[in-house]
């Protein structure tokens, strides 16, 4: 590997890095150590791991503990609670209207109550978390992947390639994020997507993942392009060019390692942004499609129960706040550790 100059690992950091018998500590190790010292970030990481683990346990909870189907209507269902059988959907005392059962606070028995379809809200919350986290993470990975390729190509090669890539990014950037996301979702989510041999069925989780990933590419690619353009003028790159190294080698061995800290800083922030976007789209009915759940769809389900069963909407709302907050704290920690001079947040 050539010279690694993550901007995060500036001279100060290098100077205070303790020397060992094996020589000075690597910039990566130093950054990770600094991250570990950041208590807020570590707490956020703990929260994220906890949320992820409980969401991954959704099938275990639904099938083996609560014995509920989180995706099927259970309007005429009954539960045994405090020595009595009770309907999941209950008639109001006046005889007009029916309301789902509220939180029982019994972890294995409609802990957060039921939604208007008689489904266990807590079970759906866990399943919804899986979908929300999956979409947020997968779309962030796809987004960062394409943004990195675009940013590297445009910044390094310049000229026509830069012009074409930049204009494509400009066009995407020109649309307000949510307007573009809703427009694409309305068209694709309800009718599916088919190009050549690729077929994605309507309602597939792949659709919100792809849509959300693509709309955020410019927001990551443009700052990366700027970083690459700056790096390209640095002596070690010029030296590599002068020594006859191929473009591919320079990009892979010289540029990418130096851009990586910025990408790492971007990633948790993009997960948070993408998760929020997914929730917004699902809330509007153009993201995750019922009977699948995401935190956004559960909030939508709870909207009509806001007055009598507020927990249906509040619980996923709280989960979004907690998870997005943790991702942002972690992103800040990454920035402090890997790229303290970055001003990435302002570009999103």
């Amino acid at each position, binding site marked *: 590997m050539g010279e690694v100059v993550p901007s995060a690992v500036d001279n100060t950091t290098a100077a205070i890095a303790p020397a060992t018998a094996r020589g000075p500590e690597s910039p990566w190790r130093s950054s990770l150590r600094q991250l570990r010292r950041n208590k807020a970030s570590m707490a956020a990481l703990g929260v994220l791991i906890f949320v992820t683990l409980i969401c991954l346990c959704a099938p275990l909870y639904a099938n083996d503990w609560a014995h509920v189907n989180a995706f099927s209507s259970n309007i005429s269902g009954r539960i045994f609670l405090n020595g009595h059988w009770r309907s999941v959907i209950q008639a109001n005392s006046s005889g*007009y209207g029916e309301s789902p059962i509220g939180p029982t606070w019994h972890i294995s028995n409609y802990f957060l109550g039921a939604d208007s379809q008689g489904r266990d809200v807590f079970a759906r919350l866990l399943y919804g978390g899986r979908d929300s986290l999956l979409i947020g993470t997968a779309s962030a990975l796809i987004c960062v992947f394409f943004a990195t390729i675009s940013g590297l190509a445009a910044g390094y090669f310049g000229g026509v390639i830069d012009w074409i890539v930049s204009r494509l990014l400009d066009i995407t950037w020109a649309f307000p994020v949510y307007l573009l996301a809703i427009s694409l979702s309305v068209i694709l989510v309800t009718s599916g997507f088919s190009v050549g041999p690729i077929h994605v069925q309507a309602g597939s989780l792949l659709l919100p993942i792809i849509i959300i990933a693509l709309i955020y590419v410019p927001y990551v690619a443009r700052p990366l392009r700027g970083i690459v353009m700056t790096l390209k003028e640095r002596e070690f790159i010029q030296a590599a060019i002068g020594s006859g190294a191929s473009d591919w080698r320079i990009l892979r061995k010289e540029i990418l390692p130096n851009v990586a800290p910025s990408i790492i800083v971007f990633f948790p922030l993009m997960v948070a942004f993408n998760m929020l976007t997914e929730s917004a789209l699902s809330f509007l009915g153009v993201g995750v499609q019922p009977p699948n759940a995401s935190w956004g769809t559960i909030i939508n389900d709870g909207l009509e129960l806001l007055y009598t069963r507020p927990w249906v909407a509040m619980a996923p709302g709280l989960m979004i706040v907690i998870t997005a907050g943790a991702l942002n704290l972690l992103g800040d920690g990454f920035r402090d550790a890997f790229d303290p001079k970055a001003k990435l947040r302002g570009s999103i």
Partner: protein
Amino acid sequence: MLKFKSTRKLGVVTSALALTLTGLAGFSASPAGASSYQKAHAGGTLTLLASTAGGTLDPQVNYTLQYWQLYQATYDGLVTFQKVNGPASFTVVPDLATSLPKITNGGKTYTFTLRKGVKFSNGQTVTVNDVKASFIRLFKVSNPNSGSWYNAITGGDACVATPATCTLSGLVVNAATNTVTFNLAKVDPEFIDQLAVPFAAILPAGTPTKDEGSTPVPGTGAYTFQSYNPNSSLVMVRNPYFKVWNAKAQPQGYPNKIVENFGSTVESEVTAVENGQADWVFDPLPADRLGEISTKYASQLQVHQLTADWYVPMNTNIAPFNNLKARQAVNYAINKNNIVKLYGGSRLANTTCTILPKGFPGHTSFCGYTKGGGSKYNGPDIAKAKALVAASGTKGAVVKLVATNDAVNASVAQYIVSVLNQIGYKASVVLQSANIQFNYIQNTNNKVQISLTQWFQDYPAASDFINILLGCSTFHPGSDNSINIAGFCNSGVDAQIKAAETLSITNPTAANVKWGQIDKNLMTNFAPWVPLINPKLTDFVSSRVGNYKFSLEFYMYVDQLWVK
């Protein structure tokens, strides 16, 4: 109001069901238009709320309860349903005609004399030429029922076939005598009822012969549409040229201005009415708010029995529901008691197994698709449904159910999709604005397999359900106005329908027996629908509203409400 979001037709109950009025202290039961006008209550702005608009404002095209209710105060036909409370509201009275028609030629000729001096809201005087032009326009704008109702007029069939060259030879007007004569190709005992609905509104002769969409068309009623933006609001103001000619046909209204705002959720609509920020909720009230409304705001809630169906039409022409066993499977699978719960409970709806609502002329009690069979609904039979799906060879088929996106419809749709998945289909729901869903599901180009919709009677006759919703004459492939949503057309059943209609001229009682047999035949041997429930209507009004009047034909008289 409850459920009528995207519904077409008003409707109502037979006298046997009559209406059930609950609560509402201070609401008068006196006739709406016949009682003396109380000037002290005139004035103010009445604010109505609906989550979405009801589509085109053109009275000869729109087929929704949402706007038919408003048309009562804005348009007139030659005759109309009497604007009074209770069963008498089914009675047809002269409106722009001076009297009920003189019927001659064995029931095939109807002669009206047009009232003189009536003006449209644009200041033009109503003439017999406007009458002729209005009926020709009705064909040119592809009125949903032009091929099932108004083609009874001689020349009507030709107008249906080639609207552009329609002259409607059977409609003869005489400016000298101010008379309008309808010559029918055949006797039609329901023709007078069909003249009393908004489709037959008299419009200025110069009205463009296309769907006017959001552009208000001048009318003769007490109010006129001032503006309409389907994304925000509809405004009605007093018609400056209106003078009362027959208070039972077109009474003077009370509010100076009537505004219907669109875009809120039904939850916020209810809250706004509770807080006195608006006066009436059009949408079905959410089930979880009914408890609160019926206790804390009981005096502002009214409940009425309706002759209406909530039903699931299945497209009999495309897979998987072009297979009878698949349609029967869905009939067996849906738990109608659950639909009642989602609608608001047993005090607001009853399960139904028939096309004709309970208490409706021709209704016969039977229930072919329920556990154990019989005349009463005993719950679903999932095992039988699964067996039928397997036998039909449609297991695993991808199915999309199209419903409106209001809370109650969306909830019912989600439940039905859950049931479809349970019996072996790969089902999903497509929720659309009520603004477009009703026309979308009618158009065969959209290839809708199954949908959720409602039907409220036009007038109390069995043909209004069976012939209109399942007759060949109302199935128009490729058209937004193809009210036979199931696309069902069977020559044998159509012959039975024609026979029942003919019989109703001479022997209505025997005809009703026949309608009941057709209903049973349709459900047993063809199952084009899943009839779900017969709903009741709930009107939730603000505390300041007075003078609530209810027509069995057109529901609450919006223009008769006091806000002052």
